């Protein structure tokens, strides 16, 4: 009789990629729930639209590349890219902004580089950065006002109609500058107390945003608990941001305070869900810490001295560039070796 011939190991107990990605989708739900609770239906609509479009573009490209479509679609990675964009884009961003972001993420940043596992850059952030520099108006004026400030909250159909209409900017009464944006521009001529009077900050740190960030933090901790991500990148990310903020921006009358850096903008989403994309991140534990810290530091630099109110996308992409370099110099010390073999083959170390 013919026996199965196979290379060891014969036993396996792996959590398939599809389930890993499913857990990422699930862990993001608290954040999406908080966004919907505090900023209306916009993010939910964006998420559904982006996920659907991401899967469609992935399928189309797989077909063009003559790859098994279902086999790859089922790994859920396109859905995660769509989800991350839906969570990051402004609530009232017109549909074509989202479409450009998703298509450039999946088609250009992912599939044209060789598909899953071969993309040097975080696909979602490539899409985000592209629309951010291409459509600055649509990307800055469409952030929803926190729900409790709305006189007449836009319902699901109104929100959907606004997004679907394709208008560059949504109804002024529904939108408001984000806390990071507000603080950055007002602090140059006002004191901290005056700036914080603005309703976008609320009673705590940043109305609505603080809960959204807390929810993403909770989801992120779940992922760490499930060993789907390691703690190194978020720790480096938040550590870098905190250290920079304490070192350079402790004066709240001149700089955005630490609390806002941590609990406003895309900080927690970035730290736990975006920067942790394993394909485009550094490899070893040490490398991940450096990679995360680099992102945190760059976010602080761009938020404070750059032109943009938030900077997750640019920072992640810039550190993506640095990954091969980081990887060369941060391999772990192998058992039985005195020290790690850093550098490239042929070099000393």
């Amino acid at each position: 009789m013919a026996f199965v011939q196979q290379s060891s190991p014969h036993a396996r107990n792996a959590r398939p990629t599809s389930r890993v990605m499913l857990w990422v989708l699930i862990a993001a739900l608290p954040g999406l729930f908080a966004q919907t609770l505090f900023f209306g239906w916009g993010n939910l609509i964006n998420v559904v639209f982006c996920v659907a479009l991401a899967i469609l573009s992935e399928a189309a490209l797989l077909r063009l590349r003559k790859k098994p479509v279902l086999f790859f679609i089922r790994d859920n990675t396109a859905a995660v890219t769509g989800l991350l964009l839906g969570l990051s884009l402004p609530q009232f961003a017109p549909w074509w902004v989202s479409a450009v972001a998703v298509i450039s993420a999946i088609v250009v940043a992912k599939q044209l580089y060789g598909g899953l596992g071969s993309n040097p850059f975080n696909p979602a952030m490539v899409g985000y950065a592209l629309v951010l520099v291409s459509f600055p108006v649509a990307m800055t004026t469409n952030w929803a006002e926190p729900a409790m400030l709305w006189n007449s909250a836009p319902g699901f159909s109104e929100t959907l109609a606004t997004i679907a209409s394709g208008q560059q900017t949504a109804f002024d009464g529904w939108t408001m500058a984000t806390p990071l944006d507000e603080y950055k521009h007002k602090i140059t001529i006002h004191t901290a107390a005056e700036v914080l009077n603005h309703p976008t900050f609320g009673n705590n740190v940043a109305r609505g945003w603080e809960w959204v960030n807390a929810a993403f933090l909770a989801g992120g901790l779940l992922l760490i608990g499930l060993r789907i991500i390691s703690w190194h990148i978020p720790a480096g990310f938040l550590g870098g941001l905190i250290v920079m903020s304490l070192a350079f921006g402790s004066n709240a009358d001149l700089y955005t305070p630490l609390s806002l850096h941590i609990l406003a903008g895309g900080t927690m989403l970035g730290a736990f869900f975006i920067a942790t994309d394993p394909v485009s991140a550094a490899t070893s534990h040490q490398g991940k810490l450096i990679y995360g810290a680099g992102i945190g530091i760059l976010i602080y630099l761009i938020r404070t001295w750059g032109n943009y109110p938030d900077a997750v996308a640019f920072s992640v992409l810039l550190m993506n560039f640095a990954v091969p370099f980081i990887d060369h110099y941060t391999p772990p010390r192998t058992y039985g070796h005195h020290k790690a073999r850093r550098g490239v083959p042929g070099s000393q170390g």
Partner: protein
Amino acid sequence: MTQLWDFSGGVHPPGHKEVSTTRPVRNAGIPELLILPLQQHIGVPAEPLVEVGERVLKGQKIADIKAGMGVPVHAPTSGVIESIADYPVPHPSGMADRCITLKPDGQDQWCALNPVKDYRSLERDQILRIIRDAGISGMGGAGFPTNIKLQPPRDRKVSTLILNGAECEPYITADDMTMREKADDVIAGLKIMAWILRPERCVIGIEDNKPEAIAALRRATEGTQTEIVVIPTKYPSGGEKQLIQILTGMEVPSGGIPADIGVMCQNIGTAVAVAKSVFEGKPLISRVVTMTGEALQDPGNFETLIGTPIEYMLEHAGVDQNAVSRLVLGGPMMGYTLTTESVPVIKTTNCVIAATAAELPAPPPEQPCIRCGQCAEACPMELLPQQLFWHAKAAEFEKAEHLNLFDCIECGACSYVCPSSIPLVQYYRFAKGEIRAQQAEQLKADRARERFEARQARLEREQQEKELRRKERAKAAAEAQAKKKADAEKAAVKGEAVDERAAKSALVEQALARKKAKAEASQSPATSAPPAEETPDIGALEKQLSQAQAKLDTMQGMLDDAKAQQADNVEKLERAVAKNHDRVKRAEALLAEARDKAAARPSESRSTH
């Protein structure tokens, strides 16, 4: 409580050990035919000491090592040697190798045995000799000759002797059952090895999932200094390097052996074999084999004669032929699949898994690596499996080597956890094989180059010597001529009646004759100067020409290569090419000349062929 260290990574596969531990070790009995490979150990194969048709007794040495490393093979029972030929042997490649087959006669008649009662009264070398002559090699996996392992280099004093009772691979329970049932033999073997090595510490490392074995060993070591150290169950704690780290906190240096840090690991089965060889005088002719897997109705451990076909063992354990999808020799993490059940049990065979398709299913198709890092978390050697995979797949072997590919112990933990179900270990084996092949190729090329360069140097030297001789001859000739001229002048001066013209023409004739002689000599330097009139051998000349042409071509090729690589031997090669070019021309000229002559005398030239 002994201090324990943890090793990095590791996985927790389900044990499946209860499948084979419910019943005590049974005797597998004597099969109809025993197949005894001549190489069951690391080293050179043993050479047969018996002839086909010869009757041998149980325990009789039937093959031994004449030169080199290795251990002998013994007859596991009495019977007749049926053949000495190639049979399939247990090997991942499914290859066949030299085996002695023995037809048992059923009498199971022992040869004369020489048990030793008090081994302490013997010299260490004598004990090592006994262990060697008993054919004992490591029974845990690799099969390194035990007597050689027990003699580490003089500067490598073994201070810690470890008995490896971890048995971390799922399914396998051979060591577990041995420790439960033969704890005294295990300890006796350990004591003999300790007496040889004189370590400061004797430790038995054993995973905490074997409470019965732990209890048995504790009883057997009561009142002795041997430590029974219970370690947490985690694969691969029984890997030599990992066990040493757990028990001592030290790491075996990369590329080194445990003795480098004063440690030695021995296998449980080996300890029992050593005890038997000394106290009973019996060679290693049987071992405990775990027969397990869901395709067996009666799994368990069997005391099995070396050489017993797996087929016989499967039947013994109640195999359901239709249910077996995969036969694994060894454990599910590091074992290899068998192509045929006709291979025999050998000294290193510890387990056979007859698995059903549901038990060890085929892996799902390989997906792209997403660098999730689960493999690196699981790697007990602290490697970066995802990077090694990347480089192995891209055939960037230099980079893989730089990331310590050769420190990989192929434990399979990375593949076990890979979400993309990538057969990582297979990629590493491939990369290692490629690198080894490249190194062998490089070595061969280096040797060829050395040979070539040495030859070039020799030819150059000979050429120079020839040139020197030529110059000397020319000088001598010039002197002789000058002298002659002087003599002639003297004679003329003396007024002798000499026709000046005649003298001159004589001189010219002499010179011509010399030149002719020289030309002849140089044309046929190798042959014993055949007469010029004889017909030249056209065939030989043609061969000479083609050889010279071929040499010129290779030389030209080498020169081109060297130029492309800007090697430092370009000059030398250029000279060589020029020289070969001349040689070809000369050969061509000779051949043309010979052909002309042959054309003049066709009949004769035919006959020379």
